């Protein structure tokens, strides 16, 4: 579905990406883990066409993403792709209603029938466990977890095939994280989504991902089946990462 190779991204003397390759197949959940500064978020932004690179290629459905026009990238982001930000407020519009935030994406993708948009919006609010009765409220009044679920509804209503997620549970209370992770897990399996998930939360990666990539200093140090990488880590850095997790 998507593959990338030879990605190089430098900020001055610092290499955010140093010859990185990846691939993802339909229905597959790939977690990219590593500490802050490992390059994982840079990689996500490059794959989603949000960040230009010095070298390399990203191919989605046979087309080179990096050479697409901005308009073509926006079209992909409205239809085939979705992007879930760590901070829901970066994605939501706080000046319009919760329902407006969700239905707006559908309108941007071409839907025009008001009743049907409202119906579909209510359906997606229920899917993310938000009472549709709160559709007309302003999302500013929602808790952090609810805002995050609203962002998920807003992203998935257009039925993307590939979703990029940047620390989707970061900054939330632990109990809220568990609920959100489980919600994401259910939706991903049910909709057969391909997901590229960036996280520093090893437990979240274990719960959601089929495959895992461990990054450090802009390079992929280890990659493979999630439980294999986490239970039998080979690289010194992966061993450190796994052994640093507190068992609950």
């Amino acid at each position, binding site marked *: 579905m998507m593959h990338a190779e030879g990605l190089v991204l430098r900020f001055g003397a610092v290499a955010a990406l140093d010859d990185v390759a990846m691939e993802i197949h339909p229905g597959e959940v790939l977690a990219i883990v590593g500490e802050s500064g490992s390059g994982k978020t840079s990689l996500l932004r490059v794959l989603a066409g949000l960040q230009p690179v010095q070298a390399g290629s990203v191919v989605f459905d046979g087309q080179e993403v990096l050479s697409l026009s901005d308009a073509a990238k926006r079209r992909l982001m409205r239809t085939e792709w979705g992007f879930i930000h760590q901070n829901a407020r970066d994605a939501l519009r706080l000046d319009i209603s919760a329902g407006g935030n969700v239905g707006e994406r559908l309108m941007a993708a071409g839907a025009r029938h008001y009743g049907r948009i409202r119906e579909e919006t209510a359906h997606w609010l229920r899917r993310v466990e938000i009472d549709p009765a709160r559709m007309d409220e302003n999302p500013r009044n929602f808790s952090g977890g609810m805002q995050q679920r609203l962002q998920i509804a807003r992203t998935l209503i257009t039925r993307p095939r590939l979703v990029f997620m940047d620390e989707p549970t970061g900054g939330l209370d632990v109990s809220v994280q568990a609920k959100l992770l489980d919600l994401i897990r259910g939706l991903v399996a049910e909709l057969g989504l391909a997901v590229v998930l960036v996280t520093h939360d090893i437990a979240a990666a274990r719960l959601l991902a089929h495959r895992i990539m461990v990054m450090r200093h802009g390079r992929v140090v280890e990659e493979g089946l999630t439980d294999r990488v986490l239970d*039998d880590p080979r690289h010194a850095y992966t061993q450190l990462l796994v052994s640093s997790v507190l068992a609950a």
Partner: protein
Amino acid sequence: MTVLRVEALAKDFMLHLQGGLHMPVLRDVALAIGAGECVALVGPSGAGKSTLMRCIQGNYGVGAGHIMLRHCGEWVDVAAADARLMRAVRRDTLGYVSQFLRVIPRVPSLEIVAEPLLARGVPGDIARVRAKDLLLRLNMPEALHGLPPATFSGGEQQRVNLARGFAPHYPLLLLDEPTASLDAANAEVVIGLITEAKRAGSAILGIFHDAAVRARVADRLFEVHPVRETA
């Protein structure tokens, strides 16, 4: 018909955080299992029985050798398979019941048991009936089926785990101490499930701490020898 053929398998651990400590665990392991056969791994504690099982399951990578498994009519080498192939192998061919259930928050027990069937495309109602039957057979009252197993006792969690492992028919089923936390009545149910799975053509590779259980289910023993430190 041979289902699994392990050839010249070696497994070492390199513990970088312990100053690069090198631990050889398996050397030159060769083992074959046929359909309908149950092989019990035996050997002293620490000899590498669980490690061998985890290598076959793909949970541990191997250092050398092959783990040939008959998957959908073709031989695949688990030791060299990529993540996507391993997912397909685990869905269709290779079942594993670990000693402990890895609990997924908020998911009801019935869904945990039905999940491997749903992953194969079995319709939801059929999968859930099968899941319910297995849980009841393992003496899990229906009132518990709708609850996530996080608050269950160890024995109850293990029965959810076992029901999940026996729900689909796997050509090869790996069992790591399946009766360790069960009472005699439930151990008896597990012996029945193993016997039925063998009759249905499953090859079973197990670690059975309980000698009486082992004697009743195993057709053959396979001894795992501790590796003598040579380095």
